């Protein structure tokens, strides 16, 4: 991904910068957007609030899948394992007299804990083995849950405890918790990518063997992403339950969730920070326009994912970044010839 160095005399010092005026503006704008989104339930009706909850859950799913695939080079087809686990752990905790909203947070943490032993199993793999290995874990969990009578077995279960809240405030709380979760996980990823670890993660993504040869701790870096992605998917599962109130194993452990994630990330831009958010908005709009379960809609999603992977592998956002050199979120570094030259090229 490194662009040729700018044409400056070799002796002249180069400035390495993270923040440009644009990225400062957009990071500030992003923070402002999160603050503004807090007021959605107050300003708009219940319908909009619920729709925004759906959109934010999609954003969370896309960002977390991209963290794993885009930065760790690990294509998982089994993130629905944590979506289902997050949802079912919430039900289980609520059945054991935990406040439903507290249960969602605890269930999210539980997904992260479960992912620790799984990471030792799964990170022995690369590529296709990892992809199907994670899928098998998700299938095994789905089978297990569908025979567990305490969790409603195959016919599903609902989060009835949440009825103790009146429908109006309930939708607000659910929305705020989803917003908090989404902002939190995007924030964690942002901080991670800007830390020293971020450079090693991007080195792993670009060339795992080369990264290992210069002393990057590849497995440790991947494990952090694996745990983050699992926890984030668990949060998305808990929020899906909070938004729909009813789950059944076949639907919540459905591989379609992964299909959505792949679509959102490929359309937006694999390995870009902002891309998955764009992809989530695109998927949300498509769902609004073409319905949720239509067969042709799914054919279109699969076909578009193929087309983007083949023809526009960096997605809408990645291509835009490449063409224009714009970076809205400062997760990389910019190398420029002088302190204040505008035509800076960058290396990532």
């Amino acid at each position, binding site marked *: 991904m490194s662009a040729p160095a700018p044409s400056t005399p070799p002796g002249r010092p180069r400035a390495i910068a993270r923040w440009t005026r644009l990225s400062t503006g957009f990071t500030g704008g992003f923070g402002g957007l999160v603050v503004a989104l807090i007021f959605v339930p107050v300003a708009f009706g219940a319908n909009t609030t619920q729709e925004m909850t759906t959109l934010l859950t999609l954003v969370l799913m896309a960002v977390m899948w991209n963290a794993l695939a885009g930065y760790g080079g690990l294509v998982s087809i089994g993130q629905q394992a944590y979506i289902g686990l997050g949802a079912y752990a919430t039900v289980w905790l609520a059945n054991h007299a935990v406040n439903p909203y507290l249960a969602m947070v605890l269930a999210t943490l539980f997904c992260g804990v479960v992912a620790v032993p799984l990471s030792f199993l799964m990170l022995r793999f690369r*590529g296709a083995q990892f992809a199907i290995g994670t899928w098998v874990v998700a299938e095994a969990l789905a089978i297990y849950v569908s025979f567990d009578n305490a969790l409603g077995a195959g016919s599903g279960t609902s989060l009835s405890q949440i009825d103790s809240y009146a429908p109006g405030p309930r939708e607000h709380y659910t929305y705020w918790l989803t917003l908090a979760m989404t902002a939190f996980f995007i924030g964690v990823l942002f901080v991670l990518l800007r830390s020293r670890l971020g450079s090693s993660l991007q080195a792993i993504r670009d060339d795992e063997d080369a990264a290992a040869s210069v002393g990057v701790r590849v497995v440790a870096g991947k494990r952090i992403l694996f745990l983050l992605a699992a926890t984030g998917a668990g949060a998305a599962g808990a929020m899906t339950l909070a938004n729909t109130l009813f789950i059944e194993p076949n639907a919540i452990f459905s591989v379609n969730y992964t299909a959505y994630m792949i679509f959102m990330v490929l359309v937006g831009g694999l390995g870009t920070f902002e891309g998955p958010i764009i992809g989530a908005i695109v998927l949300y709009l498509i769902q609004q326009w073409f319905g949720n379960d239509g067969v042709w809609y799914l054919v279109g999603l699969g076909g578009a994912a193929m087309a983007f992977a083949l023809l526009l592998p960096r997605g809408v956002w990645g291509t835009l970044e490449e063409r224009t050199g714009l970076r809205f979120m400062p997760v990389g570094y910019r190398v420029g010839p002088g302190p204040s030259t505008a035509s800076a090229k960058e290396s990532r």
Partner: protein
Amino acid sequence: MTWVNDVVQGILLGGFYGLLACGLALMFGLMRIINLAHGDLAVLGAYLIYLLLQHWHVSPFLGLLPVLPVMLGLGYLLQRTILERSLRSGLLVPLLTTFGLSIVIQNLLQQGFSPDVQSLGASAGGIATASWQITSQLSISAIGALTLGVAVLIFGGLQLYLSRTASGRRMRATAQDPDTAELVGIDSRAVYARATAIAVAIAAIGGMFLAIRSTFYPYSGPTYLIFAFEAVVIGGLGSSLWGTLAGGIVLGVAQTIGGQINPEYPVLAGHLVFLLVLLSPRGGLLNLRRAMA
């Protein structure tokens, strides 16, 4: 004695899984990619036979004959149009494109055929239900024996093709080192296209047995992809073809014994055995196979 019966049934079932896994192992051994649409291609083969049988009332075995060249051509096209491009962009892209293809095939099948479950068992006649009673506890079903027999024939035939023919030798050379193979004049892209064509055609044979032994519907593919992949991994990741058949048999036995312990858990038992094999250093059966060789 029921345990003996379980093991025998598991071995027969394993022949079926081996057949489904054969093409997957061939492609993985050659190109290091897993075709995530493999199960859906098998189901597509089953639907093509089903379509033929609606017009001509023949046995599914006869119906397979015109379907095979179609699937060969489909595999060739798949490689030339999608996989070839995907391969050029690294190891992640083939996963993403074949996953997209899998979703496209499933939903086109859902659109073109009804979502109802289908079976070709009735059209196959007596062979679908016939069995030999060996003892009071042990019986061997005709279709199970036939599946295993066909699997052994296909694995053996493929092994002969790879070791004895010039075309097969080119394939092995490309599998070992595509760049060096190119240097001595082998067109690796043609080799890949031939391998994918063979793999997809074998998947269709697996799909036919699936349709006769059991039921299928448009979204059956992923289940069988997972079984096939488990067979490939247990059998040592495509490092040998016979290993894949052995992997299928291990999976089959694990499922029947798991089903004996608890009728609800045959598939779960298979998944657990697969995960245990992953836990063992370098994959258990691979070492076993080396020890036997």
